[in-house]
Structure formats: structure tokens, C-alpha cells
């Protein structure tokens, strides 16, 4: 099932023409309307009239989160504020928030692009869709909300939190699709089990999860616990919000809406393009945004492009699930470590609950990493021998995966913090 088959299954040559046309008009507009971009282009002596191919985009400088902050709040808007019908902002956990705006057409495009990923994830107008993302300045909830309405599904805008009530509503309203972060979906699933609710009393069929990186193992766990088909979707507020890319039923990579976004993958250190098929940082240029276009925006998200055609018939290229963020990347004893690597290992081990925490301390000149892992009650109260065996197994597997040795601490169930939004699983106590 497709939402916009003429676009999603577009001939690649036709797509390239469309991308070129849209890139050229976007560059003309930002050069005319956004002083920041005009200055940046002038600095590298780039005249938008000189762009002759998609490849010429490489002559332009990158835009970063810092550029967005420096122009807080409205400095990068390409239309007057009176043409903006919506403003969203990112949380600003690591500094000042960044603000983005949408014109009426932007909201329409956004709705359609989310409708694409919902349709690809199995949703039709017959579905009852529970949106357990936090409604507010964060783009996740509204994006999915618009897309679901566009498809014609029945939307329950429940927002996040109050997990028992979520489950109650899921039962009473016969929710067929759950939308939220994967970590919150996991909390809902666990709470359901504790409440002794039989999964078969629910009508749930689909889960569309995003807004944080998650592993394949976590997908399996969610699919088993909730008896759903779970798909991954990707987006970020600086670029639009959800709808940038999403999985189809093949569940092997996320189709990028390439008719609206031009993507590049770069090596985050050298800033050079990576070899085809290699992993790198995703860089996005918007092709149709009116109010808040971005040119070569560094997403900090690490992924890989899958150039092979997909069995679903969509011609839009896929990206592998985001396996980390350049700013989530931990450098422990000089080795690059991503939290998702640890998650993947933990999920593969019997008797380990899908809740963990990574704590890093510096003792003298050395980094010491401890992974706190929740284990099932039976193991926790079991004899010491079994416990230490499990601990050794986890340590060995982690060392094999990461290339460094870490401490492992087994903790009782439900001792680690739970998250209703994006999970925060790393505690870095090092001072640099």
C-alpha cells in the first residue's frame, strides 16, 4: 500500500530532475530571503546561479545546530512571520532551544509525508491510532497526528504518561496502532504484564516507533510482547519532524522521502563524503520547505544508505536504522562506543530485562564503565553461582562487541528509571 504512489515509486531519472529543480529554486529563495545563507554562500564565493548539478551542493558549507541556536528564534525563517502558521522548538537539553516554523503548505506537505510512513507501516483509515508522544513544542506528536488524520484513521491524542490509563484506553477504545518512542512502548508492555492483562484482550496490530535510536533486538521484543508489527520511522524537528523516512512492511531500512529531502552521508571527522554503502553522518537539505528550509544540515545521526531496490516497489532509497548519534557516541578509553551496541548485546542474553544504564566514571587517568542491567527475579534471588555466571557472560559478550572491558552490575527488576519520552540511558560522570 502506498499513500502517494506516483511519488513514492517515481522513476529515478525523473526523481533526479525533480530534485534538481527543487534544489535550484530552494537555493534561489534562501539566497534572496535568509541573510545567514546569503552571507555563508558569499563567504565561499558560491552564486546559486552557478549550481548545475546535485553534486554541486558539495560546494556549500554545512549548517549545524549551533547555527540554529545563533539565529534564535526566527533568524533562519525564509518567510515573514505572518506567513508562518506554526512554530515548534526542540528541547534544548544541551543548550538553547532551536526554533522552526511552518507555512500552511509546509503543514500540508508534512501531513502527506507522515501519511506515507503510516501507510507503509500498515495503517489505513480503519485504524484507531493512539498517539503516545508528548504533545507540545516537540514535533513528534503533531506530525503523527496530522498524518493519521490525513490517512483518515481515528486519532486518540493521548500524549505520553499515565501508563495505566494508556492501557485502559487501549482496551476500551480498541486501539489498533500505537505510536510513541520504543522505550515508552516497552514500558507500556511491561506495565501491561504486571497488571496481568491478557494481550489477547487488545486489538493492537501495529506499532510505529521513532524519535530515538533502537535496536533490532528491541523490535523483536516489542513485537513479541505486544503481538504487533513494529516499524521504525525517522525525522527531526530541524528538518521537519517525523516523516523524513520510514520503514515499509519489509522492515529492512527506512525509505527516505527523497522528493522532499536531499541526503548525503559524510565522515563526521573529515566532513568528506563516505564511500557508497559505508556508515556516516546523515546530512539533509530540504527541497520543498517554505518557512524553514535548511541547507546541508548536519543531523548528527549515524546511518548507512541502502542503494538496492526494495521489494515493496518504492524507488525511494532506504537508510539503515540510525545506530547512534555523533553526540551520543561515547569515547571510552579511546574507543568509540554507541549505547545501541550495548543494547543489542543485552537483548540477546536470556534472563536479562530490556532495561539498562551505562555509567562512566574516570578513576585517575582511566575511564571505568559500568553497565547496570536489570535481571529477572528468578535469577536475582537465585544462587550466587548462577548470578556470577550470567555476569561473566554479559561481560564477555560486551567485551567482544565493544573491544573494551566494562563492569557489569546486575540489579533487581524495576530499579532503573523508566522513560515516557526519549530514554536517557547514559550517565557520564567524567569531567573534561
Amino acid at each position, binding site marked *: 500500500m502506498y499513500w502517494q504512489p506516483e511519488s513514492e515509486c517515481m522513476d529515478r531519472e525523473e526523481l533526479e530532475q525533480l530534485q534538481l529543480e527543487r534544489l*535550484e529554486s530552494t537555493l534561489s529563495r534562501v539566497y534572496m530571503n535568509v541573510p545567514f545563507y546569503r552571507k555563508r554562500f558569499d563567504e565561499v564565493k558560491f552564486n546559486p546561479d*552557478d549550481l548545475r548539478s546535485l553534486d554541486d551542493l558539495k560546494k556549500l558549507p554545512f549548517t549545524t545546530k549551533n547555527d540554529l541556536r545563533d539565529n534564535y528564534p526566527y533568524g533562519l525563517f525564509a518567510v515573514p512571520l505572518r*506567513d508562518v502558521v506554526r512554530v515548534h522548538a526542540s528541547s534544548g537539553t544541551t543548550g538553547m532551544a532551536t526554533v522552526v516554523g511552518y507555512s500552511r503548505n509546509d503543514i500540508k506537505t508534512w501531513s502527506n509525508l507522515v501519511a506515507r510512513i503510516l501507510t507503509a507501516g500498515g495503517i489505513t483509515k480503519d485504524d484507531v491510532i493512539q498517539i503516545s508522544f508528548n504533545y507540545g513544542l516537540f514535533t513528534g506528536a503533531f506530525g503523527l497526528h496530522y498524518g493519521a488524520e490525513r490517512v483518515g484513521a481515528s486519532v486518540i491524542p493521548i500524549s505520553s504518561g499515565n501508563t495505566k490509563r494508556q492501557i485502559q484506553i487501549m482496551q476500551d477504545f480498541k486501539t489498533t496502532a500505537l505510536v510513541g518512542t520504543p522505550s515508552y512502548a516497552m514500558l507500556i508492555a511491561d506495565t501491561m504484564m504486571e497488571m496481568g492483562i491478557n494481550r489477547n484482550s487488545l486489538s493492537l496490530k501495529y506499532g510505529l516507533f521513532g524519535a530515538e535510536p533502537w535496536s533490532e533486538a528491541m523490535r523483536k521484543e516489542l513485537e513479541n510482547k505486544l503481538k504487533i508489527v513494529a516499524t521504525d520511522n525517522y525525522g527531526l524537528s530541524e528538518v521537519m519532524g517525523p516523516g523524513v523516512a520510514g520503514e515499509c512492511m519489509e522492515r529492512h531500512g527506512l525509505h527516505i522521502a527523497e522528493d522532499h529531502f536531499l541526503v548525503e552521508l559524510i565522515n563526521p571527522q573529515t566532513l568528506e563524503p563516505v564511500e557508497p554503502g559505508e556508515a556516516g553522518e546523515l546530512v539533509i537539505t530540504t527541497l520543498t520547505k517554505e518557512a524553514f528550509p535548511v541547507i546541508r544540515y548536519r543531523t548528527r545521526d549515524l546511518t548507512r544508505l541502502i542503494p538496492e531496490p526494495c521489494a515493496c516497489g518504492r524507488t525511494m532509497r532506504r537508510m539503515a536504522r540510525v545506530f547512534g548519534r555523533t553526540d551520543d557516541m561515547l569515547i571510552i578509553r579511546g574507543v568509540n562506543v554507541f549505547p545501541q551496541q550495548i543494547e543489542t548485546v543485552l537483548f540477546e542474553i536470556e534472563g536479562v530485562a530490556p532495561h539498562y544504564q551505562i555509567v562512566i566514571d574516570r578513576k585517575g587517568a582511566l575511564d571505568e564503565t559500568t553497565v547496570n542491567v536489570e535481571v529477572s527475579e528468578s535469577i536475582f534471588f537465585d544462587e550466587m553461582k548462577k548470578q556470577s555466571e550470567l555476569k561473566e557472560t554479559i561481560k564477555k559478550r560486551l567485551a567482544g562487541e565493544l573491544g573494551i572491558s566494562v563492569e557489569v552490575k546486575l540489579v533487581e527488576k524495576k530499579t532503573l528509571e523508566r522513560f515516557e519520552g526519549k530514554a536517557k540511558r547514559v550517565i557520564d560522570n567524567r569531567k573534561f
Partner: protein
Amino acid sequence: MLRIRNLDAGYGTLTVLRRVSIHVKPGEIVTIIGANGAGKTTLLKTVTGLLRAQAGEILFNGQDIGRMPIERIVMNGCSLVPEGRQVFPAMPVRENLLLGAYVQFKRGNKHDVEKDLDHAYTLFPVLRQREHQLAGTLSGGEQQMLAMARALMARPKLIMLDEPSMGLAPLMVKEIFNIIVRIREQGNTVLLVEQNARSALKIANRGYVLETGRIILEGDSEDLLANRDVQRAYLGREQEGN
């Protein structure tokens, strides 16, 4: 059907169009809107070969027509209805139409010409009434119809219209645009250049906004109609809602 990439064009050392890229798919009506002097006519002249591109590529059904002689471009199925009609005033309507069939004679299809004439008269009944009248005696609207009928006599695949509504009374404008829709329904593809942005966008599938020789916006017609910049610059008033 038509694919233009990075077209630079102009007159002598003067460059009017700067890296213009557009495309038209079979069966579409695509419109190019823009103010006077934006380069709209220059664009159509370059596609028909009346002007040569300074740089860039023009593909018509996959074939590069950028260096092709005009008559071969027309022969390939690309016809222009020029700005200001350009009918032959001292010739009767019928002869004007037969001149349009020139390539049909060259193609060896002269037996089809009578049928095509009849078809043109069906599409534009007023031309049948004026068949033997000199073209110069027709009203502006009738001359526009004649120019369109003449272009159709070449049996084009793509018909390009340059400001068909120019100088016409509102009622006549409406009729001309209705006929453009009918031309598309009969299997033609239309590239329409217009200052009358609202009427053009209402019948087009997609549109491009040309400003001082550059495409600054492209999109589905309904999205362009809803764009506030387009509303301010080309639709003459700010619309609320949509």
C-alpha cells in the same frame, strides 16, 4: 515529455534566463507564471528554437532539441502559439489554418488535413463561421482561437501557449482557458506561459514561478495558489484560509 536542465538563454551578451530547469510530463498542463520581463517568452522561444540556448540542455521525448532547426522541432511535435497571436491578417481563416498544417504535408499526411480542419472547426465553431473571412477582421479572442487552431493543425504532442489571455475580455479569457483544458483532454500536453496567474493555476496541474530569469518556486498548482508570496506578487490580493 519535455525536460529542461540548467538553461541559460538571452539575447546577444544579455542573459535573461539563469539555469532554468523544468519538466513537463505527458498529459499535464504546466504553467509558468511571472511578471512582465521575467523571461517567460524567452523560455518558450528557446524551446521552439527561435532563440539558441547559451548553456543547458533541452530534451524533448529524450531527444536533444537544443541545436535542432526550428522546422524539425515542430516536425517532432512541439508547437508554439506565439504571444500576440501572429496570425496572417491578409489571409482568410482557412488559409491560416492550412499554413499550420505545413508539417503534415511534409510528413506525407495531407489526406488527414481535411479531417484536422474539421476537427479544428469543431473545437472552435466560430472559425467555421468565419472560414472565408480575412484573419485581420477577427476579434482579438477569435484571433487567439485561430492561432491555437493553427498550432493544432501540426498535430503537436506538446503545445506551448504564450500569454493566450493577453488583451482579452474576461469572458473570452474564460473561454480560452476552457478550450485549453479541452485540448489537454484530447491527449495533448500543454505548457502555458501566463501573467494571469490565477486563471493559469486553476487549470494547470503544476506550475513554476519565474522571477528575474530564475525559477524561485515550483509545485502543484493548489500549493502555489496557497503560497503567500505568490498571492502577494501574482494574485493581486492576500487570501485568507484555503
